[in-house]
């Protein structure tokens, strides 16, 4: 079956991002395919390259990256939600004249259309939310 996952929970303050990761792994283990993981609202922070954790903790962004590398996942971060929240790639940094950027590799900024397209292409769409 074809799944898409929508992550609206930020990686640190809410558990939703971690639950989504475990769910994604279980999907792949069961032989299903993941059409896309779409990060919306505060969920965009899952795509941060600057997350710094103590050595005994694994960061959620790095786990998404590892999973994406292994399974060629399409990790799409809503561009409108992201730039408002200070999550940008090199291209947006140029556009907004910022000296730095912080979108992690494997993640891509794109529009809400990618969420709609994911709905069209997928048999199931599963949302993992925060609270606000």
């Amino acid at each position, binding site marked *: 079956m074809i799944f898409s996952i*929508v992550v*609206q929970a930020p990686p640190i303050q809410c558990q939703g991002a971690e639950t989504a990761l475990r769910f994604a792994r279980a999907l792949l283990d069961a032989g299903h395919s993941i059409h896309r993981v779409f990060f*919306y*609202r505060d969920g965009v922070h899952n795509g941060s390259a600057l997350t710094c954790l103590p050595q005994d903790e694994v960061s959620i962004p790095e786990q998404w990256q590892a999973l994406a590398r292994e399974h060629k996942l399409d990790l799409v971060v809503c561009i*409108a*939600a992201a730039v408002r929240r200070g999550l940008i790639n090199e291209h947006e940094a140029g556009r907004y004249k910022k000296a730095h950027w912080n979108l992690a590799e494997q993640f891509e900024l794109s*529009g*809400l*259309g990618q*969420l*709609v*397209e994911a*709905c*069209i292409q*997928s048999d199931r*769409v599963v*949302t993992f*939310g925060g609270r*606000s």
Partner: protein
Amino acid sequence: MSAEGILIMTRAAPYGSSAARDALDAALTCSVFEQPVTLLFLDDGVFQLLKGQSPTEISQKNLNAVQQSLPLYDIERLCVSRSSLDSRGLGTDDLILPVEVVGDAELPQLLSQHRHVLSI
């Protein structure tokens, strides 16, 4: 049963969080991609449709303005929970747009009519 289109369910009051605006953005995008879309307002989400909003003092954009453009975008159905309205002492006259009022007993059917349900 042919389940079609996307239902966007929104349960948060406007302005205190960005959920109302984010749900609207998603609905408008569905429409741009010519996907049939229904908006369902539940719980505090019914406050999103209250008339007379004016959030300039809190530096936010007026949702009422976007909402009034919904018919132009072919957003086909705006559904509002009757029990959510009732418990807040609100009637359809208090809302900025004509809506379809949905009783609790009709909710399960409304959900099953759509291919996907997105909570925002």
